[in-house]
């Protein structure tokens, strides 16, 4: 594309993410590009919150002030749309006696946690008990959520190997809902107990979410064991914010250590703490940190993980996909037994479709 560079300025966003005080040093045009990159990375709510805290930008030119009004309206619009979907789910489940848990972004919004601010999600995730799955699917059908027709292979992939139903789409609003019955696929080597996740879940503002330790562990498992790499920066920012928020209660860290062991998620938890500290300087008390450090992988694995994570988080658009691909293979390796993985990747490559899916 000739001499015209249209790439988003992710390196600038990464600098601001590492050190929000950078914001005060940005020119108006750099500020503007950071808004674009943050919106694309679904971190607009985070950026605006940092701007509010610091009362920045100072005396913006009119065009930038307009852009900030727009950004604020967009972030509030995202969150409003998400709250409305949560409200529709509440209505669907009303009086059924079924237990359902809001996961990830929807959970952060429901519990009014910092990462819920101006939250933009592609889809809403909920978790139910596996035994309730068919009842829930039917109930959601009755309220307008439907599973679009798909290739029989994909249907089997979901039903046999995955920890969720195929994505459901609401027939009027076109919103997407993922119904999980665990936080990792059935075929994964790690098998965190769904029963324990359900039993420890808590009700906040009338909505059920994971307990703090499980919220962290779900995020860590998703980021460092599951497949969603595109949102890697955002997921790590979420974890950092949650660590800081939950860490204000001194009971949190010991509980996180205990629950990590109970759910057998030592490796993802180790990575979550390691990269949140490395990238964002997340404060962790000494005693739990010593326990967490014991879950480190062999140093060869750690080095390759370090370099992949660093590149996929901070790198420009041109080099990020390489690192992302490495992470993706690693995650699938953990998610599926080797033979399944080879079969799945072969099948997917023959069927065509997306670059990494």
């Amino acid at each position, binding site marked *: *594309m*000739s*001499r*015209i560079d*249209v*790439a*988003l*300025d992710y390196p600038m966003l990464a600098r601001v993410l590492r050190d929000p005080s950078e914001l005060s040093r940005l020119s*108006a*045009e750099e500020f*503007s*590009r950071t808004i*674009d*990159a943050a919106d*694309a990375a679904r971190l607009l709510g985070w950026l605006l919150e940092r701007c509010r805290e610091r009362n920045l930008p100072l005396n913006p*030119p009119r*065009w*930038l002030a*307009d*852009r900030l*009004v*727009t950004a*604020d*309206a*967009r972030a*509030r*619009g995202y969150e*409003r*749309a998400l709250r409305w979907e949560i409200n529709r789910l509440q209505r669907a489940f009303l009086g059924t006696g079924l237990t359902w848990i809001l996961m990830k972004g929807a959970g952060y919004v429901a519990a009014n946690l910092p990462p819920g601010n101006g939250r933009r999600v592609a889809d809403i995730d909920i978790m139910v008990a596996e035994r309730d799955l068919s009842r829930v699917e039917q109930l959601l059908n009755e309220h307008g959520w439907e599973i679009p027709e798909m290739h029989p292979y994909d249907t089997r992939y979901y039903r046999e190997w995955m920890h969720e139903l195929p994505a459901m789409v609401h027939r009027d609003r076109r919103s997407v809902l993922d119904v999980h019955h665990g936080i990792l696929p059935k075929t994964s080597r790690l098998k965190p107990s769904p029963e324990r996740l359900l039993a420890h879940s808590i009700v906040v503002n009338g909505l059920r979410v994971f307990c703090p330790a499980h919220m962290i562990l779900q995020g860590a498992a998703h980021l460092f064991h599951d497949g969603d790499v595109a949102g890697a920066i955002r997921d790590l920012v979420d974890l950092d914010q949650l660590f800081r928020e939950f860490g204000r209660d001194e009971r949190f860290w010991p509980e996180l250590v205990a629950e990590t062991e109970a759910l057998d998620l030592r490796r993802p938890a180790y990575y979550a703490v390691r990269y949140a500290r490395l990238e964002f300087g997340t404060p962790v008390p000494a005693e739990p940190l010593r326990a967490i450090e014991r879950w480190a992988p062999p140093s060869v694995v750690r080095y390759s993980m370090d370099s992949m994570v660093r590149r996929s988080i901070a790198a420009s658009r041109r080099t990020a996909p390489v690192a992302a691909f490495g992470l993706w293979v690693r995650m699938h390796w953990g998610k599926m037994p080797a033979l399944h993985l080879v079969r799945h990747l072969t099948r997917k490559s023959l069927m065509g479709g997306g670059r990494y899916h």
Partner: protein
Amino acid sequence: MRSLEPLSQLDTAGVQLSIGPFRVRLRSDIVGVRTYLETVYTDFPITSETAAHFDIAIVSTAGWRQWMRPQANLVVNGVRPFLPLPEDLSGALFEWSLNWCVGDHAHRWVAIHAAVVERDGQAVVLSGVSGAGKSTLCAALVVAGWRLLSDEFALVDPQSGLLSPLPRPVSLKNQSISILKQRNPSGVFTPERIDIEGATFVHMKPPLASVRQAGEPARPGMIVFPRWTRDAATRLEPIPKAYALMRLAHQSFNYNYLGVRGYEAIAGMVGRTDCYTLEYSDLDDVIGRLASARTR
């Protein structure tokens, strides 16, 4: 005419156009984009600055495709809102990308799908679905001497309740093209093209006076929902305000982003104006009726 000299850097650092309240950065390596600007944007301020509300790039596809079937790719603030289009639509693609920007990225205002014209300090908002004839009516009013605020957007400023002008080239389709060429024999029109829905369209250069007044907001005086009907006698009928409010909210691009602010801005405007439906077939007749209804 202003200096078009900055256009020489269109394919490198780009240019900044001032269009209504917006600073638009545009970069393009497609010669059709430059030709388009040189045809209908000659009265607009064009500088070599890079600051912008919207950073628009219209770039040709690299590689062999460039020779087989030239395409124009749109990138706005780093994202690609549309699929590529044939390169001969690249000028129009600039207008369509601006429409997308205003609808999706200009939330200081409530953006309503409507044409707005003004005379003697009172703006008339013409709101209607595509095909209802609002653009034709708007263009005819402008050629008859009314000020053009926009043929596409009513931009309501929630703070002042005023309408911000966004004068741009006026889009004309199918039969409207010859009607307006007849009414505006000295006007400047872009060459005819076929859009992706198979309609023939051109853009008409906006009047210099309207472009010069782009910084002067207008007070809404009348809201009209026009509908062109073959051989119909002109009928301008008052409608309930609640009905007008519902229709305008439905025609608003960013109502969902603005929430309560959007509702209050539209309700405020409807509360202060007279609202009508308009059925017409004779442009001269309806222009006269609107002029007298407005001064009533």
